[in-house]
């Protein structure tokens, strides 16, 4: 009885599994479809698209749209391509991610290992940064940036993203350090390590998994941000997302769909790259945090 029932369990298992894989493959194809459309159309000359062949492979393969999107397309008034805006984004996202991650780690360290009165309340208040809708802070933020003389600059955008990112990075590191043995900190104190030496020499070297999670999260959010970029950095200082919008929305001349597709892929590439390089650590880091916590 028992034997035959396990037998059928295996057989039904096989059938269900085939079904599951079938469904999964269908979903994967469905999700990959936009990427396929974007790729094939970015490699076609424009007439092939306007002629109605959206789904078909290019008859003439060309990288002309990519080159145009990158360096010569009309964005706003100048025919600069997306290139300068790509560097705008890079010079915004790298410092913003680095600063918000390091500050988040420091916050987590203080909130777990140097407890003080009202520290939980303070942490609770910091978490607001994770949930406050962007729109609410637009006007006060503009006022602050103006006051600091950072309006319209990349430095101003970095500040905005650091402030907004701190909530999440603090949350990640606080939860990670909460289960980090306090005895290690005490041993280091007896050994004579200072506040920052304990942080750099003991805690940070053990923070790899959560740092990866934090960096991926911040990078994706900051790179993909449109609202802050459009609000606080106009014209030549605009980040990639805003420039892409300007490229696609430009009202003059014919719509060069192939160039638009190439530009959109260019804008998405860095986040894709970060996921491909660090993605497996992402899941591992999330798991480490959750299992220990």
């Amino acid at each position, binding site marked *: 009885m028992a034997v035959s029932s396990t037998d059928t369990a295996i057989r039904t298992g096989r059938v269900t599994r085939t079904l599951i894989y079938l469904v999964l493959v269908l979903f994967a194809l469905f999700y990959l479809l936009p990427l396929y459309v974007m790729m094939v159309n970015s490699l076609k000359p424009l007439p092939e698209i306007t002629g109605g062949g959206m789904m078909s492979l290019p008859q003439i393969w060309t990288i002309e749209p990519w080159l145009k999107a990158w360096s010569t397309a009309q964005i706003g008034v100048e025919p600069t391509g997306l290139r300068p805006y790509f560097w705008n984004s890079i010079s915004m996202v790298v410092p913003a991610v680095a600063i918000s991650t390091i500050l988040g780690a420091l916050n987590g360290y203080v909130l777990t290992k140097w407890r003080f009165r009202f520290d939980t309340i303070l942490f609770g208040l910091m978490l607001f940064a994770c949930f406050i809708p962007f729109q609410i802070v637009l006007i006060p933020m503009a006022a602050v940036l103006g006051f600091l003389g950072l309006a319209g600059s990349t430095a101003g955008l970095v500040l905005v993203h650091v402030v907004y990112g701190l909530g999440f990075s603090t949350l990640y590191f606080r939860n990670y350090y909460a289960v980090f043995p306090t005895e290690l900190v005490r041993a280091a104190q007896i*050994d004579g*390590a200072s506040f920052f030496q304990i942080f750099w020499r003991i805690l940070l070297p053990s923070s790899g998994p959560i740092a990866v999670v934090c960096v991926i999260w911040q990078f994706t959010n900051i790179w993909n941000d449109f609202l802050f970029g459009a609000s606080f950095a106009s014209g030549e200082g605009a980040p990639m997302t805003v420039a892409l919008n300007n490229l696609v929305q430009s009202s003059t001349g014919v719509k060069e769909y192939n160039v638009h597709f190439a530009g959109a892929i260019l804008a998405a590439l860095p986040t894709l790259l970060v996921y491909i390089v660090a993605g497996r650590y992402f899941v591992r880091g999330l798991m480490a945090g959750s299992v220990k916590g």
Partner: protein
Amino acid sequence: MGFLDIDNATKSYGSVEVLHKVDISVQEGEFLVLVGPSGCGKSTLLNMIAGLEDITSGEIRIKDAVMNGVHPSNRNIAMVFQSYALYPNMTVGQNITFGLEMHGVPKPERDKAMADVAKLLQIELLLERKPGQLSGGQRQRVAMGRALVRNPDVFLFDEPLSNLDAKLRVDMRTEIKKLHQNLGTTIVYVTHDQIEAMTLSTRIAVMNGGYVQQLGTPKEIYDTPANLFVATFMGSPSMNLIDANVRVDGNAVYADTHDDKGGEISLAFFEPSAGLKSYEGQAVTLGIRPESLTDVEGADQRSTHVEQVKNTVTVTEPAGSDTFVTTTIGGAECVGRMRADADVAAGRETTFAINMEKAVVFDPKTEARIL
């Protein structure tokens, strides 16, 4: 003035006082063990000596220098933690020398000190490994190495053996004792294990509920416990406590109780004090250690005051080297420790020899010792 003075130290968390006026003076080279049940404040006191917890009132001095408010790294102490607290990202060698590095000791000196300590503890082959690649016993050694390399005035140990398995614990216990004998260091050692306390210490502070119940040598603690708590906490199996009445007859004083058939037993005290006599006619608690309740052949031959009582054995537990025998005296279940081949069996009557030289007496109300 001692080497380490704990002078009326108290500790409060908010309005809760968890340590009450602790007063201990430790001499140079002493091995002081703080022992007591979990939550009695041992770790708190140790952390106060280390400077990891501040002192609410009172004073702690090392070599006559007041330590209140001095940073842990400036007290010249070293600490071994229960979890070993080895830095997971550093090799064994880096773990050992981290403290020296933080104190600005140059690299050649650090390497020399590390080599010496590694040799002493026989961990030379482990120096390149990470703590994650070590067994429990090896981690324990590295943690001790990290403490030794600093050459501190006082070593602090917080339950260093409680994460080891039973066999290794006994081995490491011996090793710590050897280390203390060879190096003559001053040690304060926290444990909840009374056997560790007895075997390692030169003096013991028995703690309960934030109070030091008794401070004394292992022999004093064992033979003349200050109160019922110390008497029952120290010793395994624990001391037998028998209800008895004090009867004075001329110069002699007796403890009157009854055997398991209700028959009268009169046990004559050895060297009864005036204090005990003043309890004439009153109920007291008589304390007899298991080894003082034994078979006639096994009784201490040098004792002049051995009383014999015929009683029924309820349970025997042969333990190889001894046989533990349970019987009922004065209504209390008592454990006696007999020779391994004593002729006893459960349900049979046998003659117990009670060594009254070792008997102690407590006031049942105050729980303090009378004799």
